[in-house]
């Protein structure tokens, strides 16, 4: 019974702390042991992000802090489903998520403990949770990817509205079951209203886009010349360029104009699970994720936007503030179900 053992260990450590504190003359008042985080030198992390990306960061953290991290890698959706299934019996203390949607779903299920303000304050409003249930770690911009052999940069639309026009019929691809696409459609609804969103989705469906399972598949299809353009997240291109060589990339990126729903920035983030509420090691790790060292790692390895001050965005990307949409609060993107009903209404999912 893992949990029972953990609980008794915590209790033991807590009572030891009380005794020690009582013995010290300079600290006449014993701290309230039940709310003070306790360190036992280890914690368990569920990572919805790739091992190749996260493990170097974990190694660094372990070396610096002396805390050992048990990491379980999986994809965000599966780990989210796993955490919902495990409920308060989860062996994990921290969840690192690929997208804000999963964090929101877990927060709605009351699985997270509130994070201390000194952690959440480091990330600007608009890129993190509004209630401190989780913290944003990196930013991901929605972009248009296009086939540079068939289109010039000028011919690429500056707004996603263009794809609703008849001239784009059958020429572009989307991944409508993908969380990032649905977040974008949700943003469209929030920014332009339900009626406009309904019209846009109807016109898109009418335009017979090629349907893909995920962003990577859209990118691959553009890079292979199967479709002329597609809607994806920015870093997929950078990652593939790093693997295949930037010069070998037929697909190129274009950034929709600021204010367009097609240019929203979504975030990855981390949350402290309720079972880890008193775990100082787990907190220290989340603190580390929003340190300049970890943020720089994400910039160098994944080409994502850093979210704290003092760390520069990857080269070649428009400044993050230029993409920040003041009219959009990420918390508003929680109405995924309405979006899915809308996409289902026109047969896109």
């Amino acid at each position, binding site marked *: 019974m893992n949990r029972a053992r953990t609980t008794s260990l915590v209790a033991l450590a807590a009572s030891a702390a009380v005794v020690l504190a009582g013995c010290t003359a300079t600290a006449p008042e014993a701290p309230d042991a039940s709310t003070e985080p306790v360190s036992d030198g280890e914690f368990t992390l569920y990572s919805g992000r790739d091992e190749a990306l996260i493990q170097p960061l974990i190694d660094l953290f372990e070396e610096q802090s002396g805390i050992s991290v*048990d990491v379980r890698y999986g994809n965000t959706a599966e780990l989210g489903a796993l955490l919902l299934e495990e409920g308060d019996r989860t062996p994990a203390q921290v969840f690192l998520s690929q997208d804000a949607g999963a964090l929101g779903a877990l927060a709605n299920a009351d699985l997270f403990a509130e994070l201390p303000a000194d952690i959440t304050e480091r990330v600007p409003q608009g890129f993190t949770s509004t209630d401190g249930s989780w913290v944003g770690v990196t930013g991901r911009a929605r972009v248009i990817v296009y086939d540079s052999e068939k289109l010039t940069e000028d011919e690429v639309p500056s707004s996603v509205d263009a794809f609703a026009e008849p001239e784009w019929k059958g020429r572009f691809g989307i991944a409508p079951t993908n969380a990032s696409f649905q977040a974008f459609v949700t943003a469209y609804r929030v920014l332009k209203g339900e009626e406009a969103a309904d019209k846009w989705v109807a016109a898109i469906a009418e335009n017979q886009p090629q349907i893909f399972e995920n962003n990577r598949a859209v990118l*691959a299809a553009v890079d292979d010349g199967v479709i002329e353009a597609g809607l994806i997240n920015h870093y997929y291109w950078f990652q593939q360029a790093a693997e295949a060589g930037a010069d070998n990339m037929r697909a190129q990126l274009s950034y929709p104009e600021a204010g367009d729903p097609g240019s929203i920035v979504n975030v990855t983030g981390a949350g402290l699970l309720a079972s880890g509420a008193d775990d100082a090691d787990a907190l220290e790790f989340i603190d580390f994720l929003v340190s300049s060292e970890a943020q720089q790692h994400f910039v160098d390895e994944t080409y994502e936007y850093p979210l704290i001050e003092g760390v520069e965005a990857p080269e070649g990307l428009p400044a993050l503030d230029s993409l920040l949409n003041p009219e959009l609060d990420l918390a508003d993107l929680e109405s995924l179900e309405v979006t899915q009903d809308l996409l289902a209404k026109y047969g896109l999912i």
Partner: protein
Amino acid sequence: MSVIGVRRARRSGSRLASAPLALVLLAAVCALAAAIPLVYLVVRTADAGLAVLVDTLLRERVLRLAANSVLLAIAVTASCLVLGIAVAWVLSRVRMPAGRLGLLLTALPLAVPSYLAAYGWLVVFPTLNGFFPSWFVMTAVCTPYVALPVAAALRGASGDLEAVARTLGRNPFQGFVAATLPRVRPAATAGALLVCLYTLSDFGAVSMLRFQTLTWGINSAYGASFDRNQAAILALLLVVLALIVVAGERRTRGHVVAPAARPVPLIAPRRGLLPVFAAIVLAAPVVGVVVPVAGLLSRLLEAETIRTIDVGRLAEAIGTTLLLALAGAVVAVALALPIAALAARFRGRLVNAIESVGYLGHALPGIVVGLSLVFFSLAVVPALYQTVVVLVFAYAVLFMQKAIGSARSGIEAVPNGLIAVSRSLGLTASQTWWRVTARMAAPSIGVGALLVAIAVMKELPATLLLRPTGISTLSVELWNRTEIFEFGAAAPYAAALVLLAAVPAFVLSGVRGVAKEEEL
């Protein structure tokens, strides 16, 4: 528990007899293991409530997903039956150059996970998508499930009746259809059942080739909306489809009393026909193995960053995969044997129900079975959660039907006369089982174990959910690398996985058995 209605099958020619209570109980317990996912799905669906259930099932999209699943399953099963029987006939009746090699090639697609086969095709033809490519790839990957057992049955079937048919003026093909086809029917339908259930539950190929089936819907319910209840409703729909398939197979299964096998003279094909026969045999291996592997290799060469292979890690993954496959096969066979023994000798509603439940796991995508065991183990044996014990048990639940079918046909083939003789010599029922039935059925039981082992090696979603933190199989490592588009780093794991799974596939092909026969 009542055993009323459980009767010894009439076709055995013996008096009607009730199944021993102990066997029924044992089989029922094993079936309960396979029913865990069903319990979980019912709990989740109840959680959703009737209104959501009805609303979900009536959504146009859900109906379309279900129709697509059914369409693909029927198409793949039909084409696998035709191609599989044709391949088996060529391999066992025609004098082909390098005939044994043909048998080995026929088994090879078993070693290629469906997602890998689809991926390899997409590398070569990136525009592929929808029904026809899915049909194509799934047929190639699944044909061995029909071809191998039918080829084995043909080798065992006497050619006497075919000779009779030919003296009555039939050509070799007509003779085969009239005299031999009915004899391989049980093997063919058992194989077709595996194909059909596998196609219903497959997510790897259809997700790559963008054909939206129920498994696609289930995955997007988890992935996009974190709606476990909706996923459960869709999975339950899949279960209903699977039960219809299992019931259908039982009606058409048929039964043969194995006659004394006598070698059939091989036909020397006319010159012009040789390429046709070769094409029949090579179709599935080329589509299911050669093209995908070539596609992967080309991506490997394209990748600029071929990272050095971490040999230690690769070796560890191979070791873990082997041990899990072995353990999974042993447990799956242990759970399957009582069910197979019961279904082989007795009939009745209860027996049918027990056998059908045994097939459930295979009709469900791995993620559903995985989550159901998370639910189950946390509720019942939390100490074992995220240990190898639960993982191996999950493999057994997922794949025990692969062992049930072949073990059942093996046990059925043991002549009742031999059992009667054994009993008359004073051996008890259980002594007879171990000394006669189990021994004679051992090759068929072994075939089931190998099929399970191959499936375990390729399994991904349940492994991801249930493995002990820090343990990786080849398919997990492969997933790790293809997720981030590191084809250079993924290739050694893909190669190791296909090679490792090819070993049991090689044994399954019966190449060694054929070699022995030829030496006699």
